[in-house]
């Protein structure tokens, strides 16, 4: 299964973090109320949140190694003469019809 990030949640989360950081900076008197930082920060964090959401580096499972499957031999169809369903040996090949009139081979002795 392909793993994906959360870009929309990252975008909204980044923007909200920017707004609240803005409030912290302004209310604590770290930046002046007319500072352009208060405008830039939510936009920057919005983009950062989007990128982090797209990337989502935590919790990704490693991709399976592909070199193993490529080294395997190609698949071969199961032969009809092969044992199936609990058979332990191949069925006997059809024997040639014996002719009673034919004499047995002569013994060399």
């Amino acid at each position, binding site marked *: 299964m392909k*793993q994906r*990030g959360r870009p929309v949640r990252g975008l909204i989360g980044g923007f909200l*973090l920017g707004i609240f950081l803005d409030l912290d900076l302004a209310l604590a*008197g770290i930046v002046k109320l007319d500072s352009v930082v208060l405008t830039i920060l939510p936009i920057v964090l919005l983009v950062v949140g989007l990128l982090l959401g797209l*990337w989502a580096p*935590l919790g990704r499972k490693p991709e399976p190694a592909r070199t193993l499957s490529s080294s395997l031999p190609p698949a071969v169809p199961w032969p009809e003469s092969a044992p199936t369903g609990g058979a332990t040996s191949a069925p006997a090949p059809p024997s040639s019809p014996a002719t009673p009139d034919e004499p047995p081979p002569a013994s060399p002795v």
Partner: protein
Amino acid sequence: MRLIRILVAAAIIVAVPALSATAAHATIKGPCRASGTINGATYTATQPSAVIPRTGDVKWKGSVSTGSGKRNIEGKVYLKLPPPFGKIVIGNGSWNGPSSSYSNSGTYHYDLPSVLVGPKFTLFGHHSERGNVVCTGSIDLRIAGSRLKNPALIASIVLTILALVNLSLVIRAKGSRA
């Protein structure tokens, strides 16, 4: 990992100059004078910053030293907010129309909420005569009091922590249980 390094570098490049830059506030330019007295302390337009009480009566005075006769005047005292927000005119700090007066004074009572304790405001003002701006001025203001008692700041810090936790959850891939 490389992306994080690039983002951090970009943040430093943008944030450090922006945070450390301070606007060079000239206090007042032009043939004008302005001052205010709050609880016996006088604040003049020549000082770059002031810390004022949260509640009080300000006895204000303003004058233009040049000109004579009746003319059209216009002026404002306002706070600038970051873009895209505009300006907020303070109290009754706005005047407009024909006038033969070259000075004015009065008393203004103010009672500011505790959520305004802590922020640094820059108060701007200008005065125009016959359509031309003749005076501009600004002063950095802070309201006296402990910023740690500001309920808005405490709420904002809590919300910031929650937003950080939320953003840290975003960097997990979908379907992971880690």
